[in-house]
């Protein structure tokens, strides 16, 4: 009798523990729910929009999702953000599948891999989900729209304009790039050269050096540039690693304030150099606007206002009206210029 009772008690304990676990789990479940379900049968258009960034806990995507949420709340939809913890090529697939199962209205994705999530996106489209990509595109046939943050021309032009303004439109400038075979940077540098030749004949681009997107290499190359060209008036660094390293060198050298520096950087990296006067202004796009526009594009697709054809136009709240370009691409606009006046508004 003794043995039997004890084991029965143990059995009860196991069952109780299992039940408690399950209760705890479903507790999480019902509180986190909301997103897909209630949007599923609300009204005539299903305005639930799910954001799927490359990974969670990334300040850049936190900013873009905040922009998306603002837009979704403006048009009265349901906002949700899901995502993997690490940005590996296939880690987004299960989240896409989940969105398809939930029957969300639209999925807004920044793709970790242009191909790996294609099939999952196709299946989601088949289940009636509208697919918008932003920041990083997939192959055009896998999505309805791509929200492009900036064109190569726009990126090249804004940097040339900034440096021209900062050095008084004449003198020697140099470029501190990423690696010698970085596709994006090379395309931008080529366009900068054209833009300089066409609109700024008094500016001479003396050299392009490569910091390999490595902080120390970029730092050393900056030092070498300044020694080689004593007349140098400005440096353009179209890479976030390069501009931060160059700013760090300039801020501790006698050239601070003498040699202008601009390029593509993020506010968090550049904040101290803008505040101490090393850098006057630099450019990038505004991820909050990017998320905001993507959410409005998703809404326009859900309501059937647009289908993603070239020439379609839609309204995007405070950003105004946008037109769909070739290959189902919507351009956010000119890159955003960060300076001492506005850098405090950003945290990414």
């Amino acid at each position, binding site marked *: 009798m003794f043995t039997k009772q004890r084991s029965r008690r*143990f059995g009860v304990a196991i069952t109780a523990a299992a039940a408690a676990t399950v209760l705890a789990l479903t507790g999480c479940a019902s509180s986190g729910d909301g997103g897909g379900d209630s949007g599923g049968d609300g009204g005539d258009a299903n305005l639930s929009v799910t954001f799927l960034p490359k990974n*969670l806990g990334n300040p850049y995507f936190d900013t873009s999702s905040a922009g998306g949420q603002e837009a979704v709340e403006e048009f009265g939809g349901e906002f949700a953000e899901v995502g993997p913890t690490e940005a590996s090529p296939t880690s987004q697939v299960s989240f896409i599948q989940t969105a398809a199962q939930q029957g969300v209205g639209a999925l807004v994705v920044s793709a970790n891999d242009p191909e*790996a999530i294609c099939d999952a996106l196709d299946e989601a489209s088949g289940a009636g989900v509208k697919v918008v990509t932003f920041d990083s595109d997939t192959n055009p046939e896998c999505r309805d729209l791509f929200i492009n943050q900036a064109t190569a021309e726009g990126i090249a032009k804004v940097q040339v304009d900034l440096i021209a303004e900062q050095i008084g439109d004449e003198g020697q400038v140099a470029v501190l790039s990423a690696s010698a075979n970085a596709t994006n940077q090379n395309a931008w540098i080529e366009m900068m050269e054209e833009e300089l030749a066409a609109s700024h004949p008094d500016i001479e681009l003396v050299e392009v050096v490569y910091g390999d997107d490595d902080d120390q290499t970029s730092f050393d190359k900056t030092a070498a540039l300044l020694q080689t060209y004593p007349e140098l008036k400005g440096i353009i660094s179209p890479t976030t690693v390069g501009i931060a390293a160059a700013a760090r060198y300039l801020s501790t050298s006698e050239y601070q304030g003498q040699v202008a520096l601009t390029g593509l950087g993020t506010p968090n990296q550049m904040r101290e150099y803008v505040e101490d006067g090393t850098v006057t202004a630099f450019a990038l796009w505004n991820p909050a606007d990017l998320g905001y526009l993507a959410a409005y594009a998703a809404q326009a697709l859900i309501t059937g206002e647009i289908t993603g054809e070239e020439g379609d136009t839609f309204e995007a709240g405070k950003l105004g009206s946008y037109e769909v370009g070739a290959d189902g691409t919507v351009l956010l606009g000119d890159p955003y210029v960060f300076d001492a006046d506005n850098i405090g508004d950003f945290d990414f």
Partner: protein
Amino acid sequence: MTATAPASVPDTRSARTYAAYSRPLWRRVLLTRESAIIGLLIVVIAVSLAVVPNFDSPLTVTYLLRDIAPILLIALPMTLIIITEEIDLSVASVVGLSSVMTGILTQAGWPFALAAITAILVGTIAGVVNGFLVTVVGLPSLAVTIGTLALFRGIAVGLLGTTAVTDFPEFWSDLAKDNIPGTPIPGIMIPFVVLAIAFAILLHFTPFGRSLYAIGLNKEAASFSGINVGRTKFWLFVMSGAISGFAGVYFTLLYSNARGDNATGLELQVIAAVLLGGVSIFGGRGALHGVIAGVLLIGVLGSALRLAGVTSDIINVITGVLLVLSVVSASLLAWLRRRRISAIGKKKERELAASSS
């Protein structure tokens, strides 16, 4: 009722009792870690069906089984390896290597079937390397497979760089994705079920399978009773390599994507599921049905929680807690059983003392 009979009758039979038969059949079948996991799985499915919206759609079954198929496949040989008190941490890197081989050979114009078979062979060779280092050279499998984890992954990434091969014959990629006609069950479950049955027979109904438990409990004793410990383990690593190679081909087709960093971190998911399924990391205990339930439990839980809008960090926390609890409960169960057996012993002594006086 029958449980109390042998205890109350003064022991006239042999003093020796076999632990496995000391309890009635129903208790031996039902009160095991395997059935606890299966029970928990059923409860989780039932609750998810009732509470989580959209969990009851056929799509759930398709996506779930499709995504966990590589884990299910690799868990089969991993169970056998862990039962012998070894471990294979290189499985995910073998998946990556096999995926890259499939991609490169397909890109080079080989017929897909031939490329796939070569990729599985490469996986098998990777298993031979592991097996050789563990059994012939005699190094600990933990150290060896940590090394080959980096080595195979390095080769895979080195072969293809950061590029990806994404063009595969439609026939084969459809075959990997399509369901069994008329059901929501993906076709990959057919090879899995065949392999699962083969592994179950091998582990539970053959002398080879019994020898794995013997090795896991005490490899010297196993060796003295005529088991060739080295050769047995060698074949387990080869099997693990081959199945991981096969999983790599499937992975490639499923995502139409051959990349060096495919399936990174999969080994931990496999090992977590195997341990959750009741296999002891110290070897010598575990059963295949528990492992399959363990994989399904982690998969179903993840799927239900994702559908309920729980973020992936919290899903990781829950799976982690579940795993720790399952390991703790195994120790607790063993401790309770020891206490009970010693309690029976004391009771017998008291009865004997009472009857003799």
